[in-house]
């Protein structure tokens, strides 16, 4: 029986196996693909791999430092050979049964192994989905494509209809005869750019497409010109393609179901959820450990450190985690005579919202967080700041100033800042430090991850959000305790884009408060829906009918993914009773909305324009660049100014993007409330901040391209840094150097690599966004959603 079976030869698995080998522990490393580190193998040739987080020391028997993909893979190959790792390639695990001291690992080829401990380091990529037809194990079939230029003058079939399949097919078509096999009658899953390229290639005849077709079998042809025959089932019958190579791009099977089949539990069905682990990376199954991306640690260095540590833990050695010194430094100034683990335990004990978090997750959370001890009276954040970190109070107290009349004191164990965390909007209050105050500031990304995986945290935050919202927006002078019964009856609702929240003519029984996202208000006139207005987050809707005791006078539809808090009629009436002045304030709001609606109702063009803007995703924007085509002279100074102020690459494309009436939406960042780009950034390089709420990408970007793929608006590019522009006067007087606004592309060398770039709203420039400042005619404008309705009114 083996002491340790390591599954997955990624950075974590390699490091774990190497540590076993170094210590002479009987082990095996099982890897399903034919090479180590399959995720990194898939990176493009020569890609620069970064070693974030820079402050974390590496602890592993094998080397790792930032550098080219090839060098890193070479280092690892030599590293595991040098220490004598026992690795088995092509060994795909089908099931794991048994318990600590006696696990049975069965492989897909039927073989089984026994081990006392199992370390899972299988990452999140999953194994590529196979063709699933007779002959699909043949070596003419491959599931990845490293370098399309490797193949020339071959006949190749690409199976699949996603972006990967299209990109491969188009790249291969330069030198080969390419078929693409599509199960459906269109390329519905592809990005628009890829779709256009594919359609053009099919029209031009460079790629031949089999629609409504699926592979039926692969037969090898011996000693002939073609290596195999691909049999297809098409809508009109059978077809045969003699070919040299089949590239199957059918996506990957997410590892979660496999991991669950081993018995490992996830806290909920959220796709971002990570299995609950102890501080020693042990899962709910004793003796089974989870490291790396699967355990919520997407970075290479973290995974390698965990690989080392987990072996030490299995052997019962008491090692401090690699991040120990970092935490010790962070806790340095605290008034406690405790070691790192002691401080962490104290924090969890004092702060109820963190009580249900497991030790490992909490440790990670604290690594990302800052411990601050602001002087008494100092502002921790200001009302209308665009920050969205989350604060908890470890010592002392803070004063939360919602408005001039309302100042609430909050003590040890409570939290604040959750409103902006949840809504992605500006801070709704100013918070001042009290006496002897120590607070923990946690970044948004870490909190979102925590909320996704710990149900209790989500519940506590939601409850607090509701009661504080009710207090701030409806009953500022009523104490929280009195509002609790109302809050308890309030509900949180989620709506998908274009889902109706309530319909014109419905009975008015609830008031909704938009917590995040935004909605459009429309009414049915002359046989069609006319959009009258747009309502952003942090605003109540539906109060009109509730106040007047009538039916709904308009239909409210989610413009983007939206969450609302609903308050029923009885609670609403209770609120009106308890909070003096609320009725008057709501009536004033109703009047204002009536006036706006009447103004817009009569004009279908402005309604269409509003619908168009919403259709362009502006409902989730916080700041967007629009161009008035009736004034734009097409000089492209906006682009030149953007390039000149941003290392030579313009982050906006003026010509691209749609136009309606005369309002043009160029391809440029909308600074979404809940940015898709931020969702999967391994080094957490994409941040939101400043007074403008700009979403920007920091220098620690590792160039992985996730954000570029995740952005639904195509506004992120991968670009090399360029040199500073030349002197204007040299260009002007002598024609030397480059025209202003055109940077020199940097030499593609050893140290240069592509990083993600996007609009940062010129946060480092004086005087605001360069695109707008450089526009000679006034056509370029930047708007926040609140201003859309004004724009529509002005436009008429």
């Amino acid at each position, binding site marked *: 029986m083996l002491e340790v079976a390591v599954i997955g030869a990624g950075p974590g698995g390699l490091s774990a196996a190497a540590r076993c080998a170094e210590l002479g522990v009987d082990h095996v490393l099982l890897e399903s693909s034919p090479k180590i580190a399959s995720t990194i193998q898939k990176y493009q040739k020569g890609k620069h791999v970064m070693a974030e987080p820079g402050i974390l020391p590496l602890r592993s028997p094998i080397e790792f430092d930032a550098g080219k993909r090839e060098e890193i893979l070479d280092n690892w190959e030599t590293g595991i050979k040098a220490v004598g790792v026992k690795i088995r390639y092509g060994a795909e695990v089908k099931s794991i049964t048994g318990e600590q001291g006696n696990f049975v690992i069965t492989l897909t080829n039927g073989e089984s192994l026994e081990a006392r401990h199992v370390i899972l380091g299988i990452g999140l990529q999953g194994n590529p989905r196979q063709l699933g037809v007779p002959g699909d194990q043949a070596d003419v079939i491959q599931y990845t494509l490293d370098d399309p230029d490797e193949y020339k003058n071959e006949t190749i079939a690409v199976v699949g209809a996603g972006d990967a399949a299209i990109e491969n097919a188009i790249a291969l078509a330069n030198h080969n005869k390419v078929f693409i096999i599509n199960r459906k009658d269109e390329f519905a899953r592809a990005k628009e750019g890829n779709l256009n390229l594919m359609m053009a290639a099919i029209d031009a005849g460079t790629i031949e497409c089999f629609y409504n077709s699926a592979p039926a079998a692969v037969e090898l042809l011996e000693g002939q010109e073609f290596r195999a025959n691909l049999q297809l089932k098409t809508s009109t019958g059978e077809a045969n393609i003699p070919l040299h190579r089949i590239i199957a791009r059918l996506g990957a099977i997410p590892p979660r179901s496999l991991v669950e089949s081993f018995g490992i539990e996830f806290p909920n069905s959220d796709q971002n959820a990570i299995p609950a682990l102890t501080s020693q990376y042990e899962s709910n199954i004793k003796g089974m450990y989870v490291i790396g991306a699967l355990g919520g640690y997407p970075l290479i260095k973290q995974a390698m450190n965990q690989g080392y540590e987990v072996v030490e833990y299995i052997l019962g050695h008491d090692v401090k985690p690699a991040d120990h010194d970092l935490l010790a430094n962070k806790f340095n100034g605290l008034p406690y005579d405790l070691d790192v683990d002691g401080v962490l335990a104290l924090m969890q004990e004092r702060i109820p919202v963190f009580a249900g978090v497991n030790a490992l997750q909490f440790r990670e959370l604290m690594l990302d967080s800052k411990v601050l001890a602001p002087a008494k009276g100092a502002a921790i954040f200001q009302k209308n700041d665009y920050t969205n970190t989350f604060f908890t109070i470890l010592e002392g107290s803070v004063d939360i100033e919602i408005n001039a009349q309302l100042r609430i004191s909050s003590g040890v164990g409570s939290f604040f800042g959750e409103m902006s965390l949840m809504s992605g909007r500006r801070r709704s209050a100013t918070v001042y430090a009290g006496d002897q105050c120590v607070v923990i500031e946690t970044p948004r990304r870490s909190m979102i991850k925590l909320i996704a995986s710990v149900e209790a945290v989500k519940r506590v935050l939601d409850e607090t959000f509701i009661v504080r919202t009710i207090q701030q927006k409806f009953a500022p002078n009523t104490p929280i305790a009195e509002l609790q019964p109302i809050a308890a009856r309030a509900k949180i609702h989620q709506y998908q884009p274009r889902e109706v929240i309530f319909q014109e003519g419905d009975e008015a029984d609830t008031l909704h408060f938009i917590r995040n996202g935004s909605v459009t208000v429309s009414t049915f006139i002359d046989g069609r829906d006319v959009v009258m207005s747009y309502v952003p987050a942090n605003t109540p809707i539906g109060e009109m009918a509730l106040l007047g005791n009538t039916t709904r006078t308009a239909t409210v539809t989610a413009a983007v993914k939206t969450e609302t808090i609903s308050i029923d009629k009885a609670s609403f009436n209770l609120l009106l009773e308890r909070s003096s002045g609320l009725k008057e304030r709501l009536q004033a709001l109703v009047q204002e909305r009536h006036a706006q609606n009447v103004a817009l109702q009569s004009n279908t063009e402005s309604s269409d324009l509003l619908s168009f803007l919403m259709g362009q995703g502006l409902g989730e924007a916080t700041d967007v660049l629009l161009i008035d085509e009736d004034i734009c002279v097409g000089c492209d100074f906006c682009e030149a100014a953007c390039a000149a102020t941003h290392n030579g690459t313009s982050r906006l494309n003026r010509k691209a993007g749609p136009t309606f009436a005369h309002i043009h939406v160029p391809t440029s960042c909308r600074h979404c409330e809940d940015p898709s780009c931020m969702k999967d950034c391994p080094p957490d390089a994409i941040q939101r901040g400043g007074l403008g709420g700009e979403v920007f990408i920091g220098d620690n970007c590792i160039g992985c391209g996730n954000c570029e793929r995740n952005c639904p608006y195509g506004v992120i590019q991968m670009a090399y840094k360029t040199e500073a522009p030349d002197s204007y006067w040299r260009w002007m007087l002598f024609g030397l150097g480059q025209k202003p606004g055109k940077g020199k592309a940097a030499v593609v060398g050893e140290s240069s690599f592509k990083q993600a770039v996007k609009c940062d709203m010129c946060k480092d420039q004086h005087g605001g966004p360069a695109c707008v*400042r450089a526009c000679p005619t*006034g056509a370029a404008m930047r708007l926040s959603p609140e201003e859309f309705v004004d724009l529509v009114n002005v436009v008429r």
Partner: protein
Amino acid sequence: MHTSFLSHAGGRYFWLALVLIIACCTAYLLDEPHQAPNGGTWLGYTLGTMGALLILWLLYLGRRKRNFIQGWGTVRGWVSAHVYLGGSLLVVATLHSGFQFGINIHTLAYVLMCLVIFSGGYGVWAYVTYPAARNELKRSQTLDDIFMQLEDADGQLKREIGSLAADIRGVVTSAIERTEVGGSLWAQLAAVDHSKVIIDGVVHANPDQVKVVSWLVQRLTIAEGAESKKLAGVVRDYGARQKLLRVIRADIRFNGLQEVWLYLHVPLSFGLLAALIAHIVSVFIYW
């Protein structure tokens, strides 16, 4: 919210220019020099200095609009000021001259300045008029979009004529191949169409594609059966292609009219600068 350069900051520079003009005119009317009004009086020197400084500042717009990094204010504000104060220069300089003109370097500078101002005036009009006209013409599409539609239309026509008689194929193919857009500055501004077509081995001019359309319509009268039906489709699609070409030509023309003034305005400004230097130097030499 957004405003055009003309109404920047509530027309601040319009009012500034107006005040400047009124002040200069009042000073001119009140001034009673010992000689006929000219550039050499106390007021003449004052107006001349103001004019020369204004010219230098107006020229500096070329630098400011390319300074994307540190520039003070917005380019829109600068353009607004450039337009109104540039217009007021006409009054300042004319009063400076005391209406004394002749055939000399001084009047040359004045004439050049007028040409610069008038070309700029045209530019203002063009910038206000043409973008909206072009947007309406193209129905909110870009010129690239329309070129793409033309490409599609060409492909569609080529497929349609594939099964038709050789004479039709010859005419339509040659008409597509010999379609021209753009060309010289004059061809762009006047939207002249130099397109050709080959009919029976002879090259004909085909302005606005009318030669081909009329040939196709005539050919349709002698077509029969299935050919007639297909040819009718070709005629319809050729008509659509003709419309696209008209939009493209009109847009190129508008674009030319919108930008052409800069080819006078900028070189003349430098000419003016040279003449201005000569004017100032000569005045001091011949004092």
